[in-house]
């Protein structure tokens, strides 16, 4: 089963959700520098499916999933 993480998001007036920061297990807050892509997808590493955000975090590319309003990170 996935381990979920806390995420700080921006909810636009159009109803879109954009993740801004992720809060890692150790409590450290990381800024999402850029969202490169957003599409529905299944997670092949951790399991589950939902809206997948391809994010650039400190020059590392990571998949951030929103599965039914719960977030988790998948390695690329």
């Amino acid at each position, binding site marked *: 089963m996935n381990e979920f993480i806390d995420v700080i998001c921006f909810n636009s007036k159009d109803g879109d959700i954009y993740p801004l920061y992720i809060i890692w297990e150790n409590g450290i807050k990381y800024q999402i520098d850029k969202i490169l892509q957003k599409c529905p997808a*299944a*997670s*092949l590493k951790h*399991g*589950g499916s939902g809206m997948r955000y391809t994010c650039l975090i400190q020059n590392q590319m990571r998949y951030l999933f929103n599965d039914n309003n719960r977030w988790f990170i998948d390695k690329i």
Partner: protein
Amino acid sequence: MERVILHCDLNSFYCSVEILYDLKLKNQPVAVCGDVEKRHGIILAKNDVAKKFNIKTTDTVYEALNKCPNLILKQSNLKLYLTYSKKVKAIYQDYSDKIESFGIDEAWLDVSDCLSNYNNAFELAYEIKERIKFELGLTISIGISYNKIFAKLGSDIANKNEIYTINQSDLKTKVFPLPVGSLLYVGKSTEKKLDLFNIRTIGDLATTNREFINKHLGKNGDLIWIFANGLESSSVKKSDETTIIKSVGNSTTATIDITNFEDLKIILMPLCESVASRLKDIDCMANCITISLKNSNFESLSKQITLDYSTDISKDIFKVALQLCRQSTNFSSSIRAVGVKCSKLINTNNYQQTCLFSEYNDKDKKLDVAIDQIRRRFGHYKIGLAITSVNSELGHFSPKDDHTIYPTSYFIGGSK
């Protein structure tokens, strides 16, 4: 123009969703089962590894564990499966508005109108298959054909995550050699009957005289003859079309075997309340009440009565159902499962014909409506009849909320 119909069947649906959320299970024997403690412990779905151990859907958990002691059992999570079913249907809706569900994991799609964007139907089916795999992580088998029956046959033949096409010209080569039992609506008993006439393949059935089949198998025989010859032409129902509801029923397996009428009443009451509430939801009243009982030897019996009045009141339904139960059993063997069904429905549209000679009890209806309103706002268990609290183990269930999947019949699609 020849129609193009897809039949999409999600592979081991319940199991695939469970594995999606626990990828470690991927190469292990996994089965999804009902709640063993509530005695719903039968296998509902299994993955390919479990299939190798000859585990079958409807096996009891005990049987399944005997066949494969290492079997990993997952308790069914219907809410999650329904969420995924909806997500899959949303993908289908990108390709057609004619989508007819056949259970939670199967659907027919009439894609004749959107083929102009693709080179052929296979390309379109491949796109749907890949999208479901990518977006939801589930695999799907797709049958492509010119009618619903052969599309379904195609998806049954197709291996996991594959597409199988049956064109009109393939009838003799691809369809006729198949065993007759692979046809929709040819069950074990029909297969046995056909075997007596040496009809073993679909080709045998198709080339047999139609009147002969009709004579020996009746209306159903005529239907399967039409299916075998590829003459079935019913349309795929639009997804927003509503179906005419013919009956409303609920059934449950009791947590303990029932051996007396007092216990039977406790389990009957919530069932009658649920049926009455669902009747009111669809503005219908019923003329016919049926009860079904299954004893501990898994023998079923049902009894029905046609009333000279219509009702949607739980108390009325309960009285009649109890009377039917009294006529049906003396508890020589204990009762395991109970069902109540109301049929011969008439639409009230807020009007109703009162009975000419007996008084219509407005008070009971008002009570039902009030209870329903309280339950809708605050939850099912916030109010209930005292009888259900006598034995809370038996009476603590909510058929209306728990029962969310409605059995689908091929005929609902308007074919017959």
